[in-house]
């Protein structure tokens, strides 16, 4: 009853005309920058913060939060349409989403992504209201050993469950991990694999690799296939999901939401892990896993609802514990502090209108995003009808410009090109880019938590099996490998070829 009362207060705050206006600005801006490669919510929020100083704190945090979750909507659009994941959490959306677009089902994929995100956002909001204290405890109890095992499991799942041979998958993941370690060692500050280059010292940015191995390699591949198979992206059927599509997506959306909400609260690791875990969970339990990677709607539904649920529950540690889960969250937290609000365990009691106003605004914002994005789908699909020979130079310009805007240096473009060419050649050798890029993202996290767990346990590796969560993840990892028996694998591969 108490929660309902608070939520009513929240809706009262969030639905004031002024706050509705700021919420709309936030989510629209978020959608736009989410679509653009390179320009992320972090940069946008940083640029806008000085403008928010004169605003009431509720309005400013409602707008800034809108940019944050709006960007994840926009991110899925770019992933589906042009195979360009703008953020780590949309990598797995590319796998099936872009295939759907290639088959002329781009509208369906976008619609399912939007619907899934909305459902996940609504459930996520409800979970914050009902379960914030339980999820807080879960964050506190999650030890470095648990993190290490969870990340290990996600890596194993990625490496073994994608198409192609398991050996290639594992190899690509390991290669990704090593590339991910380039730069300054976060634990000791030593430079690794930089060969004295200051540009490499800060590590290789995810976006550089993503644009290279996804967007550029995809363009080359598509141009090539045009030679042998003329004709554009298949233009068939409705842009709206059929009843069968909705039915197929229903459970994946709910499962994705659950996984996303649970892992999304974990600081640092959460947002990325949740979409990966949700996607591979669907793939694992699917009756016919071979459809995945060839435009399975369940994959898009699960991944997109997971990352949106994670974006919502990610506010729990930030707002109620003062522990921001990502750099963007840290930025939001900083904006609040400069406005005299100190997020932390006391915030809900001290500033209920701000906390509940934000929660309610997130639900309203998700509704706005749905209303905003569904009509846009028609426009996006029309863009796909543009002949590819005119479309790809534009995609390339967008990618190059977005990437260049990150650090304003040509080095990033050369690096992107290197990854693009290498990624394309490896893809021709049946080495998928997905495990590689997930290796790059998760590798440094795995090392960090593994080393930290070992330091805290004073060098005793048994810590990985004495914590039941860590043990659970490790057992699951072993099961994932064992269940992919070579026989099954070969058959699947033969079928795919």
């Amino acid at each position, binding site marked *: 009853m108490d929660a309902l009362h608070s939520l009513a207060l929240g809706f009262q705050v969030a639905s004031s005309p002024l706050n509705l206006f700021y919420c709309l600005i936030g989510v629209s801006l978020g959608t736009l920058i989410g679509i653009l490669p390179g320009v992320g919510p972090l940069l946008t929020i940083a640029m806008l913060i000085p403008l928010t100083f004169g605003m009431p704190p509720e309005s400013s945090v409602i707008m800034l939060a809108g940019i944050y979750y709006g960007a994840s909507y926009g991110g899925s659009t770019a992933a589906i349409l042009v195979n360009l994941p703008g953020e780590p959490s949309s990598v797995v959306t590319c796998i099936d989403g872009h295939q759907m677009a290639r088959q002329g089902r781009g509208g369906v994929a976008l619609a399912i992504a939007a619907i899934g995100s909305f459902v996940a956002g609504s459930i996520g909001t409800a979970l914050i209201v009902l379960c914030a204290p339980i999820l807080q405890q879960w964050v506190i109890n999650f030890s470095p050993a648990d993190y290490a095992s969870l990340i290990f499991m996600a890596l194993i799942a990625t490496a073994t469950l994608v198409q192609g041979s398991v050996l290639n998958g594992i190899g690509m993941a390991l290669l990704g991990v090593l590339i991910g370690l380039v730069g300054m060692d976060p634990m000791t500050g030593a430079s690794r694999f930089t060969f004295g280059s*200051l540009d490499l010292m*800060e590590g290789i940015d995810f976006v550089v690799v993503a644009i290279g191995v996804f967007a550029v390699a995809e363009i080359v591949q598509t141009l090539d296939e045009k030679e042998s198979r003329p004709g554009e992206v298949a233009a068939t059927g409705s842009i709206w999901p059929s009843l069968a599509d909705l039915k197929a997506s229903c459970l994946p959306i709910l499962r994705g939401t659950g996984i996303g909400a649970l892992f999304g609260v974990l600081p640092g690791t959460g947002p990325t892990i949740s979409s990966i875990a949700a996607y591979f969970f669907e793939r694992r339990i699917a009756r016919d896993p071979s459809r995945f990677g060839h435009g399975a709607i369940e994959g898009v539904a699960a991944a997109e609802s997971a990352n949106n649920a994670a974006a919502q529950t990610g506010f729990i540690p930030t707002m109620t514990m003062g522990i921001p889960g990502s750099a963007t969250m*840290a930025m939001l937290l900083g*904006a609040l*502090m400069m406005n005299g609000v100190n997020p932390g365990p006391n915030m809900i009691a001290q500033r209920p209108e701000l906390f509940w106003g934000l929660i309610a605004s997130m639900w309203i914002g998700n509704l706005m995003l749905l209303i905003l994005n569904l009509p846009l789908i028609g426009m996006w699909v029309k863009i796909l009808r543009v002949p590819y020979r005119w479309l790809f130079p534009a995609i390339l310009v967008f990618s190059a410009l977005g990437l260049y805007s990150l650090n304003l240096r040509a080095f990033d473009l050369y690096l992107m090109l290197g990854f693009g060419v290498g990624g394309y050649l490896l893809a021709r050798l049946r080495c998928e880019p997905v495990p590689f890029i997930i290796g790059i993202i998760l590798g440094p996290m795995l090392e960090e938590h593994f080393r930290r767990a070992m330091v*805290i346990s004073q060098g005793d590796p048994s810590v990985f099996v004495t914590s039941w969560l860590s043990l659970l993840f490790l057992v699951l990892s072993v099961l994932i490998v064992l269940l992919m028996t070579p026989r099954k694998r070969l058959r699947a591969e033969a079928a795919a070829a």
Partner: protein
Amino acid sequence: MFPRHLVLATLAASAFLIGAVHAADYPSRPVQYIVPFGAGGAAELASRVVTEGFTEALGQPFVVENRPGANGIIGTVQGAKAAPDGYTLLQANGATFSVNPLLYKAATYDPAKDFTPIGLVARQPYVIAVSAGLPVHTLDELIALAKEKGGRLTYATGSTSHQLAGELFQKEAGIKLTHVPYNATNLALPDVISGRVDLIVTAAYTAVPHLGKIRPIAATSAERAKLLPDVPTFKELGYPNFVVEGWFGVSAPAGLPPEVVKTLNTALNKHLAQAKVREAFDNAGFEVTPSTPEEFGSFIKQELETGRNVVQAAGIEPR
């Protein structure tokens, strides 16, 4: 058609004007303000408050440019190499000016020689805090426990400046602790709150929301932190040499004309004197400490000296 000599004369006159205008009418175009860290974090936000002040007072936009990477080394190197014309300013802070040159070979700049100090903005007191479950309430009890455990007590830090304070603590108290580094303080908090890690060195304001879960034992600043007035300083507790603080200020490449330094310092200090600015900094855990350019210069030298002593005593080699 234009008479050629007229064109030449106009060009010469305008060239002369540009040169003359330079010092008197500074700034005449937008100024970039390099922050050597990525967007996010209190220090970066605080620098946006500073640029707002410059923009208001001097009538040209002062634009924050985030140049993150390598613990701030990349942006700071860029700041050192820029032209000393007043159109590139750099955020100087404890990590980039008094820790990095001692820890990293890649930090090729000399904080005392390669920059023109403009003014200190604010300091940030640090505290050493223990997980609430650890049975110690005073510094003496903590030191006794550390000695008893013989190096098995763990301490978490989220930045190299905090680590420096941790090293100084071990040196001054004659104890040995196991260091657990994190990328950011907030990521260390769950491990300290849950008791998996015993201690944390962090900014006072980070500790405040978690009082009850973590217990500050002593502050490393010269004076008690305003946010934690009940926590004694190491100085009070008998460690006169133990003063480590976070700080940040405004600097520029070496060789900035003195008039420009004066213009900037005046604008900065006027801005910092405003109540609403002080309040914004207080909220973010910074204590505003305006200075003259000269004071800031000697402050930087002194900070570097302290750091060097600690790093040498701890036997840390630059990497």
